[in-house]
C-alpha cells in the first residue's frame, strides 16, 4: 500500500494555494475506504499519498477525505 499521511492545517493550506483549488476540486477519498480505516482521519482532512511511479519514481498525490 502506498504511504498515506494526513496533512496539518498549515500544509493543507499550502497545497490548496499551490494548486489554486478549493476542497471540492481535489480528488476525493471516502472515509469508509479501507485505507482510511487504518488512520485517524475525519472528513475535510487532506491525505498525501506517495506512490511509486513508472515515469517519476515517486509521485505525490493528494485526496480530500469525504463522508
Amino acid at each position, binding site marked *: 500500500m502506498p504511504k498515506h499521511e494526513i496533512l496539518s492545517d498549515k500544509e493543507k493550506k499550502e497545497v490548496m494555494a499551490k494548486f489554486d483549488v478549493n476542497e471540492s*476540486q481535489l480528488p476525493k477519498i471516502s472515509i469508509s475506504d479501507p485505507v482510511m480505516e487504518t488512520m485517524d482521519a475525519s472528513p475535510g482532512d487532506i491525505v498525501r499519498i506517495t506512490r511509486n511511479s513508472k*515515469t517519476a519514481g515517486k509521485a505525490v*498525490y493528494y485526496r480530500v477525505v469525504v463522508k
Partner: protein
Amino acid sequence: MVSRIKGIEFKMLDPEMIKSLAAVRIVTSDLYDVDGYPVEGGVMDPRLGVIDPGLHCRTCGSGIGDCPGHFGYLELAKPVINILYTKAIYKLLKITCSKCGRVLSKPEDNKKSKDLSRNPPGKCPYCGQEQGKIKFLKPNTFYEDKEEMSPEHIREWFERIPDDDLKRINFKGGRPESMILTLFPVSPVTTRPSITLESGEKSEDDLTHKLVDIVRINQSLRENMDIGAPDFIINDLWELLQYHVTTYFDNELTGIPQARHRSGRPLKGMIQRMKGKEGRIRGNLLGKRVNFSARTVISPDPRISINEVGVPDIVAKELTIEVPVTKLSMNEVKEAIKRDRANYAKRPDGRRIKISSENKEEILENIAEGWVIDRQLKDGDMVLFNRQPSLHRPSIMAHKVRVMPHKTFRISPQVCPPYNADFDGDEMNLHALQTEEARVEAAELINVKNNLISPRFGGPLIGLDLDQISGVYLLTRSKKKFNRKETSAILSKAGIKIDLPDGVAEFTGKEIFSLLLPKELNMEFKSTSCRQCDSCIKEKCEYDSWVKIKNGKLLTGTIDAAAVGAFKGKIISRMHGLVDTDTIRKFIDNAGRLGVAFMGQRGFSIGISDLDLKDDIMEQIGKRIVKAEKESNALIEKYNNKELEILPGMTASESLETRILNVLAEGLNSTSEIVKEHVKDSDFIVMVNSGSKGSLVNLTQMAACVGQEAILGQRIKRGYYNRTLPHFRQGDLSAAGHGFVRKGFKQELSPTELFWNIMNGREGLMDKSLRTRKSGYMQRRLVNALQDLRVTPSLAVKNSNGHIIQFVAGEDGVDPSKSEWGDVHE
C-alpha cells in the same frame, strides 16, 4: 443590461403554444397555383418566411437571411400520437387510473413510479375502479384489456390526470395530453427550402413532401367525417394520417414501412436530419466546410525539404491571402497585380473588384493605402497541411509553400510517418492561413521542423526510411576511400552544399557522413546491426556496430535505422537538445539524399537467388523440420493414448494444440538460426541488418520454411467434418493437416500449403480493417472524454471545472516532445 441565464426549461409544444407561434393556418395541400405563385394557406404560404432572394417576408417584412421564418399550424381532423412519446404514454397509461386519472398509489404509500409501472395495482386507490391491462404494441398501438385505444381516448384519459399527481411522479415538460397531437405545427419554409433546378422545375424538400401528405390526408379525413362516411373508411384514413405524422418525425422506425420519394429513396424525417455523422449536430455544428483550402493526391519529391509542400500552380492561383495595402506593402502589391498574381482588390468602401487583364491598369492607378488585395499563394507562404484520419497532433503541421507544375501536392517522403501517408492514391488537405498572427503562430508552433519529436513517446517522428537508410548504412560501412572528386560527386548528386575541409585528400564513408553532423554532437550507442553479444567490446566491435560520435565526427560504427530511422533515430533525438531545429531539418534532408545518392552510385539489387542455400544446408533444414513434425506426431500419439501431460487450466486437446504450436515454432526458430548463419551476404542482408526493410522471419519464410499458419492464434481447424480439407483423413491431427507449411516460398508450396497461406492472408486483411474501425471509435470516445483536460501553470492537470486529475502532469512533469525518449536532455 446584462442578465444571467438561470436555466432553460424544455417543454412539449402544447396546442395553445402551437397556435400562438403560428402566423398561418394551413388549409390546403396545394403548393403553387397555375402561375407558379405559392398558394395562401398552403404549406409554402409566403407568410411562413422567405426563401427567394429579393422578396420580403409577408409576416415580418425582412428579407432573405434576416427573416427567421414563421410557423404555421394545421388543425388535425382527429388526434394522432406523437411517436416520439410512445414510451412516456405507455408508462403513464399504466400508472394512472382509467376512470379518474389519479396516480394508482397514494402519496403515503411512498411507491416509486418505476415500481408502479412494473407492477401496476389492479384497482384505483381513489375511485376503486378496476384497471384493465395496458399493452403497447410497437410502434403506435395501445390496448386496454385487448381492446385497441384510440388516440382520442388516450387524450381524454390524460386530460383527467391532475397536475399535482404529475408532479408527484416527476412528469416534466407540460401537460401529458400534449403527447397526443391535435394541432400540428407546420415548420417555417426556411427550414425546408425548395430548390429550383436548371430546367426551371421546382424540387421540394423532403419535409415539404411529408407536410403535403399530412395536409392532404387530413383534408380527406375531415371531408369523410363531414359526409358521415362509414367507420372503416374513417379509421383507414386516420391510420394513414398517423403514419404520415409518424414518418414526418422519424422515418427509420422498426415496424413502420419507410416513406419513400418517387425515386424510391427514403425521405428524411426530423430525426434523420439531426442524427448521426452527417446530421445537424455532428455534420453542421461540430464540423463545417471551410474556404481557402485545397485537396489533391500526394506524391513524393525527395528534393524538397521536410517542411515544404509542393503546391500545384493551379491550386496556388486559386488560394489567396489578404494583403493590406500600406506604404511598406505597396511595391509587393503592385508587383502582384502586374504579374497577375492577385485575384481581387477591395476598396476601403468595401467594394470587391475582380482583377483581370482588362482592368488591372486602372486598378494599378487607383490603388492606395487602405485597399486590400487577395494575393495568390507564393513560395515561402506558411500553410497548414493535413491527412485524415487526424489521429494525433502531428496529423496537421505547417509547411512552406513551393509552387510547382502538375497537379499533385508534393511532400518529402520523410514526412510520411507522422501523417501515416503513402503514395498509393492518398489525398491530403491544405489550408491557406488568412491572418499574419495565424501564419506566425503556425510557423512557430506546428512547423514540421518544430515537431520532429513525438509528443507521445519523445522520439523522432521523422527520419530516414528504406533506401535512405540502406544508403547511409552502406556508405558508413564501406571501407572505400573517396578522393575529393568522388566525394564532391556524391555530395553534389545529393544536392548538399558543404565545403570540403582543406588539406584532406581522401574521405572515408564515415567522414563524408560526418560532414553533415553538427560539431556539438557527442554520443555512443549500439546500432541496429548489433548482434547482442554477451560482453560488448564497444569500439572494437567486429561488426562495426558500436556507434561513437565525438565532436560531430563519426569515429566507429555504422549509421542505420537506430541512428537516423523514423521512430527510432537516436542521432535525431539527441540533436534535438543540442542544436536548433532548422539544423536538424537540414540534417534529415541531407542525410536522406546522401544515402540515396551513394546507393545510386554503388548500385543496389536483390533477387530471389540471393537466398539460395547450399544443398547440405537445405538438407539440414529439412531434417530440423522433419524432427519438429516427428515431435508433434509423438505428442499426438501420446494424446491418443491419453498419456499427454495436461497443462494447467486447459483441456487435453487444448494442451495438445499448445504443445504442437510450441514444438513447431521451436523447429522454425532453429531453421531461422541456420538461415541466419548460412545465407550469403547480399543486398537482402543489407536491408535486414540496416533495419531499412525486412526481417529474419521474412528471409526464413522465403529461403527455408514458412511455418505454422494460424487463424485466431490457433492451428487451422475449420473446414469439413473432423478435418480441414478432403485431402486429410477424419480426425487427423497432424501438422500438415492443420496449417503447417514445411516449405519456403522459394520452393514450391503444396496445394494445401498454399491454401493455408491464403487463409492466413485473408485473416490478416480482415483483422486490419476490423481493427482500424474499432480503434477509430475507441479513439473518438477517448478524445471526447479527455479533450478539455489541460496542464495548468502549476503543472497540475485540471479539467474544465478546475478539478485536479493529476498533481504533476504525467507524474514527472516532463513534456515528452521536449525530452529524449521521456528523459530530460542531458
